[in-house]
């Protein structure tokens, strides 16, 4: 009898353990506290494609055998964009060789991107004498499908190249050469055979396909059908990543959800947003944009809140590194989206590394380093009482 009781006790313990095992596991973090995850409304087929892209982006680490380098900056996409957030100075890349809109004079020396690391036996590139350069901290990946789906007309409508309204802010478009593999879609606008750049610190890339194919090639030394030239030899070689994988990654980037604001109803956050707009920060960091048509239904005709105008602005001498891309001047930078700003520390190792090269270690420091067209806004911020400054910063951290 005692033995039977013991049997039942063990059996009951086993059943309870199996049934309740999920309760003993860590809960998922709140959706608004993380940057990764897909947009809502994807079809099952799109979810499968998203998952394939997720694996290729975050889990696939290249080796010499699978095509890495021989010169490179990183060994995987995920090593620069941990948790799909902003990067760390460890993975900051360097561009060099172009100081005006006449083009890059150092292409024969490995420009525009410095391949700062190399497989054993190879020597990484050095910045040639006389070349100007700038360091670029990897951006967050989230919500980029929405930015890609903003119509050219809407971007042009925000531009004010001659500062016609006299507010001291003159957003301009960076017109970039159209890559042969890019098919312009929608109601695109061209200018002398060039199209609107909207990705990259200088808006040097037209769309996410260009950005992705270029990153595989320039960051990891991985050739593709789209970017077939080896960064070491300069010769066209066999593709080292398949079209399918690359397109999966593009789809993954297009369908990563937009960051979700935390505590939007908090009184300080609401007041902070008012102060943000009163300081004219929103003239470049446009709070609301809308998408046009997209073949991905969850991205089509949506209103969203990225806090960018996707335009170039002169940011003053302090942020002028003497390097540029396309038609941008050396002092011009594309307005970075502020959504997800408050979560940056969670992908940057617990500290802030803000602005294009990570030189600002707090949001306030980043604001105070603004110059050029943003001088007026910086001055308005600096003149705020400490309590209001804190509210404005609380708002920015909520994004």
């Amino acid at each position: 009898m005692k033995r039977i009781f013991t049997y039942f006790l063990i059996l009951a313990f086993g059943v309870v353990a199996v049934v309740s095992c999920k309760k003993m596991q860590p809960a998922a973090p709140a959706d608004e506290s993380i940057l990764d995850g897909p947009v809502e409304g994807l079809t099952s087929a799109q979810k499968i494609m998203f998952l394939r892209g997720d694996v290729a982006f975050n889990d696939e680490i290249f080796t010499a055998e699978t095509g890495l380098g021989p010169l490179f900056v990183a060994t995987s996409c995920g090593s620069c964009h941990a948790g799909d957030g902003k990067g760390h100075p460890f993975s900051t890349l360097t561009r060099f060789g172009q100081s005006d809109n006449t083009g890059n004079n150092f292409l024969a020396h490995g420009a525009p991107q410095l391949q700062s690391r190399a497989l054993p036996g190879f020597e990484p590139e050095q910045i040639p004498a006389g070349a100007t350069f700038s360091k670029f901290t990897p951006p967050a990946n989230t919500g980029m499908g929405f930015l890609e789906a903003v119509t050219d007309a809407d971007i042009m409508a925000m531009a004010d190249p001659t500062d016609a309204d006299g507010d001291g802010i003159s957003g301009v478009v960076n017109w970039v050469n159209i890559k042969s593999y890019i098919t312009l879609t929608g109601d695109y606008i061209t200018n002398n055979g060039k199209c609107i750049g909207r990705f990259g610190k200088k808006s040097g890339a037209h769309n996410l396909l260009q950005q992705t194919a270029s990153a595989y090639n320039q960051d990891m030394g991985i050739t593709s059908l789209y970017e077939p030239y080896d960064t070491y030899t300069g010769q066209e070689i066999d593709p080292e990543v398949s079209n399918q994988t690359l397109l999966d990654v593009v789809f993954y980037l297009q369908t990563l959800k937009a960051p979700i604001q935390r505590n939007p109803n908090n009184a300080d956050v609401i007041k902070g947003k008012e102060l943000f707009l009163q300081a004219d920060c929103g003239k470049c960091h446009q709070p609301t944009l809308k998408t046009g048509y997209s073949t991905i239904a969850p991205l089509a005709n949506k209103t969203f809140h990225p806090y960018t105008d996707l335009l170039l602005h002169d940011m003053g001498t302090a942020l002028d590194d003497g390097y540029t891309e396309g038609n941008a001047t050396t002092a011009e930078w594309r307005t970075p989206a502020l959504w997800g700003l408050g979560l940056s520390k969670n992908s940057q190792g617990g500290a802030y590394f803000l602005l294009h090269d990570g030189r600002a270690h707090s949001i306030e420091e980043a604001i105070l380093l603004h110059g050029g067209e943003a001088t007026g806004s910086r001055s308005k911020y600096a003149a705020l009482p400490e309590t209001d400054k804190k509210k404005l910063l609380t708002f920015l951290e909520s994004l």
Partner: protein
Amino acid sequence: MMRIGLLSLLCMVCMTATAQIDTTLLRRKPKDTTGMLMNMDAVYSRPFLSVGKLPVALGGYLEANWQHLGTDGITEGHQFQMKRMTLFVASGIARRLKFLSELEFEDGTKEINIEFAALDMEFHPLLNLRGGIIMNPIGAFNQNHDGPKWEFVDRPTSAVALLPATYSNVGFGVYGKQYSKDWVVAYEAYLSNGFDDRIIDNNTGRTSLPATKLNKNRFEESFNGMPLATVKGAIKHRKIAEVGVSYMGGVYNKFENDGMLLDARRRADVFAIDANSTLPVTNTFINAEWAWIQVDVPPTYSQQYGKRQQGGFVDIVQPVYSKPLLGFEQSVVNIACRLEYVDWNVGTFDQTGGNIADHFMSIVPAISWRPGSQTVIRINYRYNLQTDLLGNPASRTAGLQAGFSSYF
């Protein structure tokens, strides 16, 4: 004539088959009760089975388990795993000449490895020659890894993802032991084929000695022509503890090919210390191992591949019920706990001076039931924290594991 021959052969087969069914003819190797066995003896201190006076003994073990783990709210659900089945064949070829082989099937037949296949020749207790596929004696787990000896479903993380668990290679060496009352001192020293550049060129994205296990050619040829040296010394007092100190190191990269110099000679060196003891009053068994790794990573390579690594584990096992249970006379119930820590990249970022993270820690409380000394049924709760290279918020993994492991 041919028919008679075939008939005779058939009769012999039938007689042999009948004899094998008669279990009274099967003999277990007697269990050692001296308390003087060490980790280095683990390879032969297994419950081999021999038949009659045949000089060949057979054995093996298997491990299977169920687990339900989740990471940050995402789970792969119920997983049933056949971790491994291992077969041993030992043979006393002649006096002071013996052979042992260990063939392992991991994850079904996903990985099939000859983990050990060596000939031992004894000249003197202090001088034995061993050659063949040897198991490099770094730390204790690599020598003493049989599933039925452990109260935990998973092998220690430091043993499988920092050190290359059950790393074996083709090589030769010597070993020996010296007894003096309650003391025993032992040593092992081998030269074998070595590492390769997968250590810093692998799809784990970190410096990984275990990645070199993927080089199947190491049983045929050395990657770079440089031998890997493995040395271990250990001392044990029968009533106190066993302590081992070990080293394994060599050049890992292909610095030269076809007579042309390609790179500097780059070394990987491993130091480990292990200790185990059974506390006399409470009969608590404590087993611990810690390893330090240094790898010469080219300065022009990525910092994500660490130059220094360290990690280890401590297991505490407390027997709590040593009475017959459910009809098993030799039954023992234990409670146990494992603490683990691994840092795959000890250092600081050149760019910021901040700490490079990439570390792991876990706690694994466990209950195990041994219906006999050769079989263990175990239930574990695992809780892991894994931090990425940059030190971002750790991912948390936890869940239940249950399984068994048994010699046969």
